[in-house]
């Protein structure tokens, strides 16, 4: 996954920065400048480190831990202790392992959903901005309309209706095991499909301003076709902005997913996500006993992760100066 990115980066560097003798005076590419600005933002760098640590922990801990996320036991509602660091839940399951397990799914949905929104948003925005004129205004009009609609209601209707169809179809075409993952698939697609609007607007604005720049004109004069201009000249320059908004889309989708899971429409048991874990905790709340750890730990980790993602996104945005550009 990281390899092609790296080789691309180094190629870009090789193009923009002349060999090392000139290095001190050589103009830095916008990406390099932004990267240096980013590294000075301590909060953002700290957030990035925190996120890496969280990801490493939630992936590794379930492998080391003596407990399984689905293993039931008689030790119900145990307070956090040396054996169960986060306590246990209503079925006596170890909460720490369940939180890790839920975090994996929440983050997966966030990242894949953001990826889906990236593909739709970039394509939509790039085409609208590049085509201009009537196509542009029609496409952006659609975005405006979609903006004003209650997207979550559509996701709810989509998930509850189309999912059944897809499940039946998958069960006949493929195996029943694959049919079980349809909910996850639907979360990816559904949440991505309602989160691309801002991305499309921003990409369109960037493309619109890039389209009339001299180097694009030059390329067109040299006979490059549209596909080449988009691929070689426009999209590479949009990339920084896209990454910034991608980082801000991930927490938004994680919130969406947890919202749906809380309503019982997202991740289904025995699978878990942060939202469904918090919902399980809130179900157990009553006036006689408060099992605070059932909400505090999944909720706490979720809030910390979202905070870090937001700080990281803000830091990237400031570094790339997305708003201030043009």
């Amino acid at each position, binding site marked *: 996954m990281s390899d092609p990115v790296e080789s691309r980066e180094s190629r870009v560097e090789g193009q923009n920065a002349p060999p090392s003798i000139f290095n001190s005076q050589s103009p830095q590419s916008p990406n390099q400048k932004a990267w240096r600005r980013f590294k000075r933002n301590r909060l953002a760098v700290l957030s990035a480190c925190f996120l890496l640590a969280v990801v490493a922990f939630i992936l590794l801990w379930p492998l080391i831990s003596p407990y399984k996320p689905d293993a039931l036991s008689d030790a119900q509602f145990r307070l956090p202790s040396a054996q169960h660091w986060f306590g246990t839940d209503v079925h006596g399951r170890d909460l720490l392992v369940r939180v890790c397990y839920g975090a994996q799914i929440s983050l997966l949905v966030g990242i894949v959903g953001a990826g889906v929104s990236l593909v739709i948003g970039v394509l939509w925005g790039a085409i609208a901005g590049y085509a201009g004129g009537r196509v542009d205004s029609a496409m952006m009009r659609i975005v405006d309309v979609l*903006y004003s*609609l209650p997207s979550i209601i559509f996701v709810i209707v989509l998930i509850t209706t189309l999912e059944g169809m897809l499940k039946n179809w998958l069960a006949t075409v493929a195996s029943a095991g694959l049919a079980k993952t349809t909910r996850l698939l639907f979360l990816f697609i559904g949440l991505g499909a309602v989160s691309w609007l801002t991305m499309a607007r921003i990409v369109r604005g960037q493309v619109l301003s890039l389209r009339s720049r001299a180097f694009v004109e030059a390329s067109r004069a040299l006979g490059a076709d549209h596909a080449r201009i988009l691929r070689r000249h426009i999209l590479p320059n949009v990339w920084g902005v896209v990454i910034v908004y991608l980082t801000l889309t991930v927490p938004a989708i994680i919130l969406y997913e947890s919202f749906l899971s809380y309503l019982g429409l997202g991740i289904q048991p025995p699978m878990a996500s942060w939202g469904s874990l918090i919902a399980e905790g809130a179900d157990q709340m009553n006036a006689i006993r408060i099992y605070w750890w059932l909400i505090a730990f999944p*909720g706490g980790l979720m809030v910390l992760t979202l905070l870090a993602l937001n700080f990281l996104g803000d830091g990237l945005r400031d570094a790339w100066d997305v708003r201030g550009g043009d």
Partner: protein
Amino acid sequence: MHFLRRLAFLPLLLLIISLLAFVLVRLAPGGPFDRERKPASPEIERNLKEKYHLDEPIWKQYGRFLNDLLHGDFGTSLKYRNHTVNDIIAQGLPVSLTLGMLAFGFAMGVGLPVGFITAMKRGHWEDYAGSVLAVLAVCIPGFVVAPLLIMFFAIKWRLLPVALWGSPCQVMLPTIALGLYFSGKIARLLREGMLNTMQAEFITTARAKGLGENAVLLKHAFRLAVLPVVSYSGPLLADLLTGSFVIENIFQLPGIGVFIVNGSLNRDYTMVVGLVVLYATLLVVVNLLVDLGYTLLDPRVKYE
């Protein structure tokens, strides 16, 4: 002119949305009568379908639906068969709308001052404290805030009721739980808007003319800086109305959110389509009003 055209466009949009919802719910496997007493005989099911015209071809059903809709009738709920969808809307919508409006007021009432102060005191402790609180608010979803509020205010300190709806005391916790997230968002938007506006040249001009700092900030800067907040308030209302599903669920409020969730799970065709059309109409109209307000605030904005 622009607004007239959009107004004319509105029925078409609602038509498309209703058609989409109408077809989608009917495409789903299962039907509204699946959970009848277990061995429902085919005759019963046939009669039920006939009564609610579900045996007709879909275009005919849609035509019937549109005709009823023009007469202001959303039809009878297929699950709660002694209630019409109109009844359910009439009972639930006031609760959901009140909650949404209160939360809107809370979000604005908290978000705007915090955003304003953090922008004014940039770099001071007020800025840091306010900004951290605002980010925190944006990162804590309502369904985490709500149980925490209940835990402390209702169960531990016994200051406010756990659930129910009606008196001002009962309204407080749901309003905060729903509005907190959005107050953080508004504070962040306004802070950024203020910081951007303060660099504009007309601010320098205003200061050079010798205007007092308060007049500069409130009359000149704020008016422009609040624009992002205004344009956000359309989507904000959509989020408030749909965000209240969870809050209504937690505080057991008799709102409308539960019906849309259960309606789509139960394949309650009329309910789902009716509520989708209702929400879409509400939001499209609100967005139109927001855009109108936008042009009033910023005369430079012209739609075509």
